[in-house]
C-alpha cells in the first residue's frame, strides 16, 4: 500500500505548491536583478515609478502576444508568426486609415479576422496535416511579411483622430502635494496598451484555469496521445489555440500600432523570439504541459530589465550590449535552474 500522504489543503500549501516553483524562481530572479539595477543606477532614476510603469507600457505588445504564445507553448507547439502578424496588423491599419481613408475600427476588425483566420489555418495544418508547428508557423511568418511588403515597402504613419485619441490616452499617476494632486516627476503613467495587456493576462488566466478548454490545453501538452484516448477534443482545442494566438498577435499589433502610430513592413523583426523567450523565462516549458500566465508576466518584466539596465548604463558599445544581453539571459536561466534544482532536492529529502 502506498503510504497515506497527509492531506493538507490549507491556503499556505496551495500557494507553495511545488508546481509553482518556476514562477517563484522567476520572481526571485526579477527581484535580484531589480535590486542590482537599483544599487547601480538608482541615482539616475532606475528606481522611479516611471521606470517601472515604462516596463509595462513599453512591453505591452510583447506581453499581449505572449498570452497567446503561452497557450500555444503549453500545447507543446510554437508559433513563429506572431511578430509578422502583429506587423501586418500595423500595415492594415496604417494603409486602411491613411491611404484608403477607412474607419480605424473597420481596419481593426479586418485585422482581427485575418489574424485569427491565419491562426486557425495554421492550427488546422498542424493538426490535420501533421506538419511540425515550427515549420507551419515559419511559413505563416514568411507569408505575413511578404504581404506586409506587398502593401507598402515604406512605413506609413497613421493619421487619424480616433487613433490619436486612443494612443494619447494616459492615466497619470498623481501625487498629493499641498492638498493638490500633481503629476509625479518624472511622470509615470498607464496607457491603453497596458490595460489591454492586463486584461489579456486575466482572460488568459481564466481560460487556462477555469475552463475545460484551458485544461484540455494542458492535457494535450502533457501527452497528446493520451488526451486523444481520453476522448478530449484535441483537434478543436489545438486549432482554437492557434486561432486565439492569432487574435493575440493582432491585439499585440494594435498595441504596437498605438505605440508608434505607424505601420512598417519590417516592424518587430525577430520579436517572435522575444515573445517566446519571455514565456520560457517565465517558466513555460517548450516541451508542453507546464506554464502559467503569472510566470509569463514575470518573464516579460524580467526580459524588460535587460534593455533598461543597458540604457541606464549608457556607455556600452553596441557589441558589448549584445554580449551583455546574452550574459544576463544566461544568468537568469542559471539562477532559475539552481533554484528549481535545489527545491527538487529539498522535496526529495523531505
Amino acid at each position, binding site marked *: 500500500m502506498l503510504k497515506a500522504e497527509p492531506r493538507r489543503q490549507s491556503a499556505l500549501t496551495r500557494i507553495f505548491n511545488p508546481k509553482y516553483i518556476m514562477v517563484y524562481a522567476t520572481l526571485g530572479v526579477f527581484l535580484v536583478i531589480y535590486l542590482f539595477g537599483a544599487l547601480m543606477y538608482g541615482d539616475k532614476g532606475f528606481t522611479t515609478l516611471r521606470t517601472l510603469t515604462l516596463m509595462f507600457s513599453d512591453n505591452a505588445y510583447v506581453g499581449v502576444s505572449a498570452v497567446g504564445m503561452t497557450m500555444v507553448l503549453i500545447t507543446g507547439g510554437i508559433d513563429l508568426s506572431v511578430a509578422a502578424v502583429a506587423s501586418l496588423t500595423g500595415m492594415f491599419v496604417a494603409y486602411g486609415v491613411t491611404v484608403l481613408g477607412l474607419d480605424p475600427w473597420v481596419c481593426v476588425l479586418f485585422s482581427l479576422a485575418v489574424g485569427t483566420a491565419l491562426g486557425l489555418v495554421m492550427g488546422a*495544418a498542424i493538426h*490535420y*496535416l*501533421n*506538419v*511540425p*508547428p*515550427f*515549420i*507551419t508557423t*515559419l*511559413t*505563416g*511568418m*514568411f*507569408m505575413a*511579411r*511578404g*504581404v506586409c*511588403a*506587398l502593401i507598402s*515597402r515604406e512605413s506609413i504613419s497613421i493619421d487619424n483622430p480616433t487613433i490619436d485619441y486612443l494612443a494619447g490616452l494616459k492615466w497619470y499617476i498623481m501625487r498629493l502635494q499641498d492638498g493638490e494632486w500633481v503629476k509625479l516627476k518624472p511622470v509615470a503613467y498607464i496607457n491603453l496598451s497596458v490595460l489591454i495587456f492586463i486584461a489579456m493576462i486575466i482572460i488568459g488566466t481564466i481560460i487556462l484555469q477555469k475552463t475545460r478548454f484551458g485544461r484540455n490545453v494542458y492535457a494535450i501538452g502533457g501527452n497528446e496521445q493520451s488526451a486523444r484516448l481520453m476522448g478530449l477534443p484535441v483537434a478543436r482545442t489545438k486549432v482554437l489555440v492557434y486561432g486565439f494566438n492569432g487574435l493575440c498577435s493582432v491585439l499585440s499589433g494594435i498595441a504596437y500600432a498605438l505605440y508608434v502610430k505607424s505601420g512598417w513592413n519590417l516592424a518587430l523583426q525577430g520579436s517572435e*523570439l522575444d515573445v*517566446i*523567450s519571455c514565456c*520560457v*523565462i517565465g517558466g513555460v*516549458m*517548450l*516541451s508542453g504541459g507546464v506554464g502559467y500566465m503569472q510566470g509569463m508576466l514575470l518573464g516579460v518584466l524580467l526580459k524588460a530589465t535587460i534593455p533598461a539596465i543597458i540604457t541606464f548604463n549608457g556607455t556600452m*558599445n*553596441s*557589441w*558589448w*550590449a*549584445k*554580449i*551583455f*544581453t*546574452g*550574459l544576463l*539571459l*544566461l544568468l537568469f*536561466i*542559471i539562477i532559475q*535552474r539552481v533554484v528549481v534544482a535545489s527545491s527538487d532536492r529539498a522535496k526529495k529529502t523531505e
Partner: protein
Amino acid sequence: MKAKLNRETVVRSKLLWAVIAELLILLVGFIMRPDFLSVQLMTLADGSRVLFGTPIDILNRSAEITIIAMGMTLVIALGGTDLSVGALVAVSGAMALKFLRWDVLEYPTPGDYTVMPYFLVILVPLAVCTLMGAFNGLLISKLGMQPIIATLILMVAGRGIAQITTNGKQFTTMYTPFQQIAQGYFLKLPMPIIITAVVILGVALFTRKTSYGMFVESVGVNPNASRVSGLQSSRIILIAFMITGFLSGISGLIYSSRISSCDSNNAGINNEMNAILAVVIGGTSMSGGKFSLTGTVIGSLIIQTIVTLVYFFGVVSEAIMAFEAMIIAVVIVLQSEPVRKFFASRKRSRASATGGAVRA
C-alpha cells in the same frame, strides 16, 4: 520481403516527395526560361575552363546552408534546435579576417597577404566555433536548459563577439589562398560544392559507419530508455552541438571568402531558420528520432532553388517572401502524412485489387 518493401516506401516517401517538389520547381524554371537548366563550359580569365550555369549556382550557393544543416540534422534528431548557427557564421568570418589582417585597426585597404600563419586563419575560427558549440551543448546537457533558450544566448551574444573581434569594421582581404576557399575551382566545379560534398560525406560516414547516428536517434526518441541502456546522452548531445558549431565555422569561412571580407551584421543572417527548414523538409521530425541526411541535402537544395528562381525571374522584391512561403507551403502540404497516406492508399488499393485477382 513484401513487408520490408512496404515499410521502406513509407519511410522514404517523405524523401520522395521532397525530390518530386525539387524537380517540379526546376521544371517551372525550365518552362519559363529553357536556359535555366543549361550548364556549359566557360573559360575564365586565367584560361581554365569551368562549369557555368544556374544549376551550378544553386549548388554553389546552397553550400553554406547545406553544411550547417548537416549538423542541424543531428541536433534536431536529438529533439533540439540550434538558433546560434547564424551568429557562429559571423564569428568565424570575423576571426578569420582578424587573423588575416591583424595589423590594421581602422578602415583598411585590401591586402594580399596574411599576418598570422594561414593555418591559424583556418583553424582558430573553426576551433572557436566548435567551442561555442560545446558551450551550447553543455548548457543543454548539463544544465538541462531548453535548446531554443540555451542557443538564443549565443545567437544574441555571438554577433557581439564577432563585432568586437574586428572592432566593428569590415576588413577586406585579397589573400589568394583564402579567396580560393569560395572563389576557387576544383574538378571544374566551384570550391564550395566540393567542400559541401566532403562535409556531407564526412557526416554521413561518421553517423552511419559508427554507431553515433543510432545513438542520436535513440536519445532523440527516448532519453530515459537510452540512459538506462547505458548511453551517455550528455556526451552525445555535446558532440552534436560541437559538430554543428564546427560546421557553422566552415560555413562562415566560405561566406567570408565569397565576399573577401567579413560582415558581422549580415553574415549568416536567417541561416538558423533556413537550416531548420531544410532539415524538416528533408523528412527529419522536429520531435527527434530518425534522421535523413539525404533528405536534408534535398531540403537545402529546394530552398536555394526557390531563392535562385526568385532572383532569376526578378520577381518584384516585395513579393519574394510571400512567393517563397507559398512554394514552401505547397511542398510541406504535399509531404504531410495525411496527403502521403492518401496517395499511398490509392496506390495500395490498386495493388491489392490486382493482388486479389491473382489470388483468385
